[in-house]
C-alpha cells in the first residue's frame, strides 16, 4: 500500500509539472502581455510617469527575459528579481490588472470554488444512487422511463443554458434573484451565521444546475452496472436462499456496482470544474470562473496562470483521491500495478 501511495504521488507531481509548463505556454501564447499593451496605451496618452512604472514592473517580473526563464522563475526553481519566489514557494505572483498580489485577488473565491464543487459531488452521489437503484430494480417501469428521460435531458442541456432558464423563471415566479452566492448586503462582511445561512440557500440552485449533467451520467452508468449484477447467479442464489430483497440487493450487487462509481469521480471532476466555471459566469457566483475569464481577456498572465493551475490541481488531487479510495476498496487494483 505504501509503495502504491508513493508511486501515485510521484506520478501526480510529474503530471502537475507538465501541466504547469502547458499552462504557462498557453498563457504566453497570445502576442504581447498586459504590461506591453498598457505601455503602448500609456505612450499613446503621453503619460510618461506611468510608463516608467510599467517598465519597472516588466523588469521586476522579468518579462523581458526569455520565455523558459520566465517559466522557471514563475515556478520558483530559478531566482527572479527577489530571489526564489514562485509557485513552489507559495508566491502566486502579481495581478497587473488589479495591481494587487494574486492571492488577494482570488482570496475567498478559492474556498467558494472548492465549496461549490464539493457540494456538487455530494449532490450527484446522494441523488443518483437512489434513483439508479430504483430504476434498475424496476426496469421498464414508468418511473424508470421518467428517470431515463430526465437523464437524457440532463445530458443534453448545457448547464449554463439551464442556469439562464432557471434564472429567468425563478425570478419571474418567485421574484427572487438567484444570482450570487450570498445576499448583496453580506458582500465584504466577515463570516457570520446569517451570512453562512444566506450562502447555503444560494448554493442550492448552482449545485443542481452544475450537477445535473453528472447526475444523469452517473444514473445511467450505475443503472447499467446494477442491471448486470442483478442478472448474475449469486444474486439469484441469495434470493433463493431466502434473503430479504433489500438485504440481498444491498449486501452484494449494490456494493459491486459502487466500484466503478468511485473510479468515476476522477472522470467527473474535470467536467464539474468546467461546468462550474460557466455556471458561475451566468449566475455571477464569486468563484474563480469570472476572474479567470477577465484575466484571460486582459492577458493578466500570472492571475490567469494561477487560476488554471489551481483548477488543474483540484482535478488531479480529485483523481488521486478517487484512485486511493478505489485501491482501498478493491485490492485487485493495488496488486495490478496502480493503473
Amino acid at each position, binding site marked *: 500500500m505504501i509503495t502504491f501511495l508513493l508511486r501515485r504521488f510521484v506520478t501526480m507531481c510529474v*503530471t502537475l509539472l*507538465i*501541466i504547469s509548463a*502547458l*499552462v504557462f505556454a*498557453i*498563457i504566453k*501564447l*497570445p*502576442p504581447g502581455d498586459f504590461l506591453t499593451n498598457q505601455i503602448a496605451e500609456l505612450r499613446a496618452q503621453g503619460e510618461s510617469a506611468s510608463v516608467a512604472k510599467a517598465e519597472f514592473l516588466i523588469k521586476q517580473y522579468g518579462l523581458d527575459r526569455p520565455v523558459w526563464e520566465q517559466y522557471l522563475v514563475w515556478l520558483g526553481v530559478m531566482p527572479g528579481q527577489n530571489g526564489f519566489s514562485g509557485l513552489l514557494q507559495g508566491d502566486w505572483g502579481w495581478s497587473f490588472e488589479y495591481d494587487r498580489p494574486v492571492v488577494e485577488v482570488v482570496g475567498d473565491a478559492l474556498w467558494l470554488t472548492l465549496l461549490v464543487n464539493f457540494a456538487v459531488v455530494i449532490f450527484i452521489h446522494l441523488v443518483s444512487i437512489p434513483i439508479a437503484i430504483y430504476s434498475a430494480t424496476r426496469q421498464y417501469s414508468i418511473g424508470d422511463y421518467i428517470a431515463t428521460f430526465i437523464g*437524457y*435531458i440532463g*445530458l*443534453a*442541456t*448545457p448547464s*449554463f*443554458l439551464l442556469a*439562464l*432558464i432557471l*434564472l*429567468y423563471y425563478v*425570478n*419571474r415566479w418567485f421574484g427572487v*434573484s438567484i*444570482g450570487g452566492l450570498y445576499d448583496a448586503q453580506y458582500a465584504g462582511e466577515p463570516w457570520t451565521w446569517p451570512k453562512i445561512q444566506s450562502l447555503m440557500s444560494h448554493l442550492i440552485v448552482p449545485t443542481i444546475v452544475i450537477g445535473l449533467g453528472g447526475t444523469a451520467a452517473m444514473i445511467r452508468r450505475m443503472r447499467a452496472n446494477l442491471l448486470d449484477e442483478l442478472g448474475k447467479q449469486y444474486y439469484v442464489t441469495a434470493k433463493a436462499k431466502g434473503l430479504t430483497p433489500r438485504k440481498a440487493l444491498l449486501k452484494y450487487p449494490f456494493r459491486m456496482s459502487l466500484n466503478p462509481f468511485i473510479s468515476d469521480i*476522477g*472522470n467527473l*471532476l*474535470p*467536467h464539474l*470544474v*468546467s*461546468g462550474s*466555471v*460557466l455556471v458561475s*459566469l*451566468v449566475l455571477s457566483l464569486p468563484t474563480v470562473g469570472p476572474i*479567470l*475569464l477577465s484575466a*484571460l*481577456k486582459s*492577458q493578466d498572465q500570472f492571475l*490567469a496562470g494561477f*487560476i*488554471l493551475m489551481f*483548477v*488543474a490541481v483540484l*482535478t*488531479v488531487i480529485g*483523481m488521486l483521491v478517487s484512485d486511493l479510495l478505489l485501491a482501498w476498496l478493491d485490492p485487485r487494483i493495488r496488486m495490478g500495478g496502480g493503473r
Partner: protein
Amino acid sequence: MNESLSVKQHYVDSAAFDPGATEPMGSESESFYRASSWRLMWWKFRRHKVAVAAAFILLVFYAMVPFVEVIAPYNQTKRHGDFLYAPPQSVHLMHEGRFIGPFVYPYQFTFDIESFRRVYTIDTSTPQPIRFLCRADGYDFWGLVPANVHLFCPPENGTMFLLGTDRLGRDLLSRIIYGARISLTIGIVGIAVSFTLGLLFGGLAGYLGGWVDHVIQRMIEILRSLPELPLWLALSAALPANWSPILVFFGITIILGLLDWPGLARAVRSKLLSLREEDFVKAAELMGASKQRVISRHLIPNFMSHLIASATLSIPSMILGETALSFLGLGLRPPITSWGVLLNEAQNLAAVQLHPWLLFPIIPVVIVVLAFNFMGDGLRDAADPYH
C-alpha cells in the same frame, strides 16, 4: 485423424458438395448469413426506433444547411429599425371564424416614456397572409449567385417575426436558421480533426507499442485530467484579435478538436490491442496475408464502426463547446452567426427578463445534442452486429 487413416474403404460422393444440403436455409436466414457486416449493422440499427427517429431529425437539420438562404424568410443582416426587440408574432389560420390560410396580425407599437421601452400591441383587424415561394430580401446564394427567392416570406408591406427580433431589429428565426450552418458544421469539422488525431495517435500507440505507447498513454492521461473549458477559454483567448472571422472559425474548430482526441485515441488503442489477439487475425496471418492486408481488410473495418459510434457521441460536446465559448464572447464573433453567438445577447438577466425570446436558440441546441446522443447510442449498439 488416426482413426480415419485406419479405415481402408472410404466412401466419397462424386457429386459436388452442397453445404446447405443437410439443413437447407430459408431465403431469410441465408440473406442474414451472407449479409456484409455493414448491412447487419444497418438491420440492427433499424430496430432502434428512437435512434432512427434521431437520425431522421439530424438528416433534416443537415439537409437545411446548404439552403439556409432560401429557407430563412429574411436576410440574417437585415435590420428593421422600427422593430427593435419586437416580440414573436404567431401564425394564425382562422380569422373571425373563417379559414384563410396561414397569416399574421401586424404590430402597432408605442413608446413607453416611463420605462424607455417599446410596447408592441397586436392589431387583430387586418390579417396579413404569409407568402410562399416568393421574392423578398436579396442574398448571394453560397456567396456567389445573387437571388431573392425564399421558401416563405413576410406579407407585402408587413412583417413576420415568428421568433421576435433582437436589439438591432434582426429577425431571430432567420438568424437561428443561418446559425445552424455554422453550429452544425463546427461539430463535423471538429470531429474530423479529433478523429484524425485520435486515429493517428491511438494507431501509433496500439501498433508500435513500447515507449511510443507509453508516451502517448501519459499524454492522454494528462490531457484527460485537465478541465476542458478553462483550457478552451485560454486557447481561444490566445487567438489573435485581428484574425478574420473565417480564420477564427477554423481556429476554434481546431482548438475543440485538439482537446477531444484522447478519448478516441484510447478507444483505437484498446481496440487494436484486443483485435490483434483475435482468431480471425491469426487465421489471416497464417494464410499468409501481408501486414497491410491484415490492417486494411481485417482490423480497420472491425473497429471503424465502433469509432464512428463514439465519434457521433462526441459531436455534441463539440457543438456545446462552441456554444459555450461563443456565449462567453471568446468563440466566434459577429458577423459569423452561430447559436452560441445568438445566445451571447441573452447573457444577462435584464435581457432575458425583458426579451425572453432571445433564449430561443437554446431549443435547436438541445434538439441537435439530444438527437446526436440517441443516434450515437443506437450506432454503438449496432456497431457490433455479431453479438
